[in-house]
């Protein structure tokens, strides 16, 4: 069975010798060194912020946990300098197949077009992702990662948060201008601020078994309704690196977790599924899940991100990926506030944008769960009708819900400037930037997402066409496609994906979302859009 993959040493920090009026003051303390806390710390550090990152454990790597990381998450990790490592190790996939009984109902492709740097998804055990992120923090002197530091109390004051932290050497105090709670679904910080975490509890139980075996199945997501090897319930099979396969079996609501978890009882179920016994268990877990979120992601100077703020069912890969989207959304805003470039109310847009995304993720994953585990007799009947119609109709296939996989939300946000020009396509304000293949001046191939990273992951104006360069406000990067010295759009895909003609421009936020777009940008219009996206009006 799985062992801890990486162990880290506790080290005493000079902050622990300070007390009273001399306690350490930090701009940002992040609690929880999981994928979300680590990614947020790296992003803030790359923006020049000093970050203290606390974790109550001293190891990562118990079980695979999250395994599907989305294109959007990979693009974020590219900005953090860890994308290549994740993709090199991960299993790339974009195709899913849905079976009913013994026969295939249909298959879908989550990224049916070429011309993107990153695939629709990779599968990668969470402990690898965390290990690569920890390695990256070691290259950044701004990140101060402290293991076996557990927050036991917090007190909100006017301009700071006072934290009490337990360590193997006893407790110490620390102050932070902002605290970000990335401490997971059982967040203790959430309890400390007294926030409720209400939502829907699902009664069905699911068994996860990660097994090690050599097999020739393709790297696709296979999902069964009522398979011959697991009658009446659902099942999932999905490949991870190192010849590990994720198997997820729906159990009856009244199954006894203690009994079902025992390898001796799991083994025959997996044997029935695989038709052989040549596998070893890597990890077994039994779970029930809830769909819920905090009413507010901001509690004074304590900000919640990832599972601490919202929880979804696992079908759709919306847990870790939405937490990473929280981190990329929060990072640039918190950086601007800490630098005094934007007022604190910019942080409210984090709550507005990410709580709406959480609602969308909860809605989608609840629908998937209800489809897999119908509650009433009539619900089961409607599901059966869909499954049987799917055999001979296209609409039936599209109604079958075996999990709708994570895609980035489109934000309805006060930071966006409404379209005034005519558009027939392209990402609207509030949507994330689509990628496209590009060539640089020397004919070298690159991608639009790379060009965005190259100009500094800050506000940037993406301009198309041969005309004179737009008068870009100070501090805003420029990405030019076409014209002298600009990038070349070799297949015209960038122009197509952005509905661009000569003169078209997009103002991109530091997280790669569209703030505004123009057929012909004027300086006053750009200034106004930039001020709006920065929370300055």
């Amino acid at each position, binding site marked *: 069975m799985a062992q801890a993959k990486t162990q880290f040493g506790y080290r005493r920090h000079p902050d622990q010798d300070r007390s009273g009026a001399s306690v350490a003051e930090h701009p940002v303390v992040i609690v929880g060194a999981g994928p979300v806390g680590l990614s947020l710390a790296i992003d803030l550090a790359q923006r020049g912020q000093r970050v203290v990152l606390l974790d109550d454990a001293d190891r990562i790597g118990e079980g695979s946990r999250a395994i599907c990381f989305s294109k959007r998450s990979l693009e974020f990790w590219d900005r953090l300098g860890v994308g290549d490592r994740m993709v090199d190790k991960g299993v790339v996939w974009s195709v899913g197949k849905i079976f009913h009984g013994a026969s295939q109902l249909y298959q879908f492709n989550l990224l049916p077009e070429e011309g993107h740097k990153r695939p629709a998804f990779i599968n990668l055990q969470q402990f690898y992702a965390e290990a690569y992120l920890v390695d990256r923090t070691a290259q950044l002197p701004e990140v101060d990662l402290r293991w076996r530091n557990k927050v036991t109390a917090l007190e909100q004051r006017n301009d700071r948060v006072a934290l009490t932290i337990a360590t193997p050497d006893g407790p110490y105090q620390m102050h932070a201008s902002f605290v970000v709670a990335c401490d997971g679904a059982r967040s203790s910080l959430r309890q400390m601020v007294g926030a409720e975490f209400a939502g829907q509890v699902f009664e069905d139980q699911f068994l996860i078994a990660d097994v090690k075996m050599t097999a020739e199945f393709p790297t696709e997501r296979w999902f069964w309704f009522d398979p011959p090897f697991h009658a009446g319930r659902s099942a999932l099979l999905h490949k991870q690196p190192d010849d590990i396969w994720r198997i997820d079996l729906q159990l009856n609501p009244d199954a006894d977790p203690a009994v079902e978890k025992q390898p001796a009882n799991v083994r025959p179920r997996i044997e029935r599924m695989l038709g052989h016994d040549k596998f070893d268990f890597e990890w077994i877990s039994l779970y029930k899940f809830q769909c819920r979120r905090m009413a507010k992601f901001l509690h004074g100077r304590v900000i919640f991100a990832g599972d601490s703020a919202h929880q979804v069912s696992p079908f759709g890969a919306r847990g870790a990926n939405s937490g990473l989207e929280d981190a990329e959304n929060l990072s640039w805003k918190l950086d601007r506030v800490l630098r005094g470039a934007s007022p604190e109310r910019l942080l409210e847009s984090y709550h507005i944008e990410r709580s709406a995304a959480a609602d969308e993720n909860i809605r989608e994953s609840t629908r998937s769960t209800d489809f897999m585990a119908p509650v009433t007799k*009539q619900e089961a*009947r*409607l599901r059966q*009708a869909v499954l*049987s*119609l799917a055999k001979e*109709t296209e*609409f*039936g296939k599209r*109604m079958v819900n075996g999990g709708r996989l994570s895609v980035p939300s489109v934000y309805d946000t006060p930071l966006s400037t409404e379209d005034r020009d005519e558009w027939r396509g392209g990402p609207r304000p509030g949507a994330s930037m689509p990628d496209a293949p590009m060539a640089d001046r020397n004919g070298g191939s690159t991608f639009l997402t790379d060009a965005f990273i190259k100009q500094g992951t800050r506000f940037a104006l993406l301009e198309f066409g041969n005309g004179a360069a737009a008068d870009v406000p100070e501090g805003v990067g420029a990405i030019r496609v076409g014209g002298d010295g600009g990038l070349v759009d070799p297949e015209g895909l960038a122009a197509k994906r952005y509905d661009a003609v000569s003169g078209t421009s997009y103002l991109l936020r530091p997280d790669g979302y569209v703030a505004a777009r123009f057929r012909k940008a004027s300086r006053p219009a750009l200034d106004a859009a930039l001020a709006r996206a920065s929370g300055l009006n």
Partner: protein
Amino acid sequence: MALSTRSNFAKPDDAFRAVVEAHRGLSEAQSADLDAALVLVLANHIGDIDVLHEAIALAKRRVLDSSQQQQQQQQ
């Protein structure tokens, strides 16, 4: 109002009869299965979520009205 409640069939009796006859000879469970499939097929053909919501609201009022009547009769 997106939902049309005008009489759309030249011969409404034919339409009613077609549905009734589809259920002939079926058990209650089979009839329920047929209705479930039929609703989904027709909903997809309409392909307009506003019309579907209005149709559901109109149909559901009958269920609620009749349950209220039953309650009143019991009182």
